[in-house]
């Protein structure tokens, strides 16, 4: 049994980037904070692992939002993370190759405009206007975006259908939706990172980010429990009062922040009887995003590699992103692939969006899919990959679920559909007091920059109230 002195101001469930950022701000301000993470390492999708003598980034593999004034830059500076990791930028950050042309995104957006315009001279003005919109977002457009799909935004600026597909493909790869279905607001957030600000990578691998945030969190006085699930959120009289850990320990607290998926938070952790009918109905209607099949290849040191390290190489073999999205649900997924050579270690990562299947499906199919994926990457990007590979493995949707417990192994939380944009109940539930959600299940943003903002904004909200009450 815990004593009253064991009480925390805040318990955060999950040490994903959103949970860690939030925890750091709260602990830094003097709150007593506990983060409980079920995995033995922090980071969620932003982790690295070592197998067969090779170290791979598990899922997240580069990030944006690190420009002067960018949210990740601001947060890393305020939490003194910046001085503890060396972050490099690769340019071009992304190369999008289609059957007819290839476009590059550079660290200076003007260079990207110049390069793309030389391929589409008739669209020169349109391309510049499109890019400028992201460089200097106009409040009127921001307002419009809440009602638009990303396709409407593309149609507003660009004429050429092939160019639209090429520009939209990285959004499919980072949000799991074709532009016709994606909220323009979320799409614009993702896109801004690519155009202005992509290609950042911490020396030593992605695990450095959560490791460094964890270290700062502890230095600020926070307590981080790894390999420790939370089994229950306790609420009395409509208000959160504590959590029950996997080991049976009861932790009283004033406030709970869930970095888990919303279904788990509302249906398993909370007493689901607390849910009002309209929230339960909405929860059952909500669609998760696609999951991911990630190929990891360790290659011999003397292998000759045609791709440059640190660049995301996108291969679009079919311009119809709607068809690619439909096919991803039917296990026909070979038309859109992203390949990347990890800086320093030179390992190969390759990504495809796929739908969720259970563990048995993947046990039966994983090896076959690995071979098929390697063959595809050989054909489009790295000839001879199978010969140079000395270690191969893959993460299936079932793997992603196992390590992070993201519902259906969803790669980007709830699908960023226009109809699922900005659902307040999934960030600040109204039916229970002092419970908040952070991370990519909050319907306001995805990706590292999106979850960093979500952690920062919830901490800011709580600190305003807390400082008033106690100072």
């Amino acid at each position, binding site marked *: 049994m815990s004593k009253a002195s064991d009480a925390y101001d805040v318990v955060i469930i999950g040490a994903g980037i959103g949970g860690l950022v939030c925890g750091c701000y709260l602990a830094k301000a003097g709150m007593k904070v506990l983060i409980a993470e079920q995995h033995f390492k922090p980071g969620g999708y932003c982790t690295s692992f070592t197998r067969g003598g090779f170290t791979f980034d598990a899922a997240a593999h580069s990030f944006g939002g690190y420009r002067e004034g960018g949210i990740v830059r601001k947060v890393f500076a305020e939490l003194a993370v910046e001085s503890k990791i060396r972050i490099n930028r690769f340019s071009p950050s992304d190369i999008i190759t289609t059957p007819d042309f290839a476009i590059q995104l550079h660290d200076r957006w003007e260079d990207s405009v110049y390069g793309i315009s030389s391929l589409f001279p008739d669209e020169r003005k349109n391309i510049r206007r499109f890019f400028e919109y992201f460089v200097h977002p106009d409040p009127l457009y921001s307002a419009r975006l809440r009602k638009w799909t990303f396709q409407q935004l593309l149609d507003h600026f660009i004429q050429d259908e092939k160019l639209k597909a090429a520009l939209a493909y990285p959004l499919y790869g980072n949000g799991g939706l074709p532009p016709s279905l994606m909220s323009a607001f979320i799409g614009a957030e993702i896109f801004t990172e690519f155009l202005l600000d992509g290609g950042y990578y911490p020396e030593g691998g992605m695990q450095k980010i959560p490791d460094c945030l964890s270290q700062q969190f502890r230095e600020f006085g926070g307590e981080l429990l790894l390999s420790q699930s939370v089994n229950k959120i306790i609420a009395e009289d409509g208000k959160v009062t504590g959590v029950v850990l996997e080991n049976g320990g009861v932790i009283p607290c004033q406030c709970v922040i869930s970095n888990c998926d919303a279904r788990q938070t509302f249906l398993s952790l909370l007493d689901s009887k607390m849910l009002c009918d309209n929230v339960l109905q909405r929860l059952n209607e909500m669609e998760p995003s696609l999951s991911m099949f990630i190929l990891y290849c360790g290659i011999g040191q003397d292998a000759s590699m045609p791709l440059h390290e640190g660049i995301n190489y996108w291969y679009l073999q079919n311009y119809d992103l709607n068809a690619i999205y439909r096919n991803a649900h039917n296990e026909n997924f070979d038309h859109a692939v992203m390949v990347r050579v990890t800086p320093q270690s030179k390992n190969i990562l390759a990504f495809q969006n796929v739908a969720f299947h259970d563990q048995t499906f993947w046990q039966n199919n994983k090896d076959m899919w690995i071979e098929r994926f390697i063959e595809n990457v050989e054909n489009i990007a790295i000839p001879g990959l199978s010969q140079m590979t000395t270690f191969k493995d893959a993460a299936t949707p079932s793997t992603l679920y196992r390590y992070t417990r993201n519902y259906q192994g969803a790669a980007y939380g709830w699908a960023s559909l226009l109809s699922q944009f900005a659902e307040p109940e999934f960030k600040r539930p109204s039916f229970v007091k002092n419970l908040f959600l952070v991370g990519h299940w909050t319907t306001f943003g995805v990706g590292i920059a999106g979850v960093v903002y979500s952690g920062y904004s919830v901490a800011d909200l709580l600190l305003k*109230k807390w400082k008033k009450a106690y100072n």
Partner: protein
Amino acid sequence: MSDTIEKDIVAIIAEISGFDEEEITPDKNFYEDLEIDSIKAIEITVAIEKKFKISVRDEDVPNITTIRQAVDLVNSLLIKK
């Protein structure tokens, strides 16, 4: 009617901004006084639209900078409904 609307709008803004309802007086400026950023501005707009089942014109969104303006706009949209 206007009083209830104002109360509901203030409650939404208190939830999103972190400021107490008592601090959110009619002349408070979203951006200067209540630290509303561009993402929160859209969050507030969407929350108000959902709450009152109205659709705010895009061009009106950037022009609404105070609580009073937001209440007036919601009132006028509800009358037109």
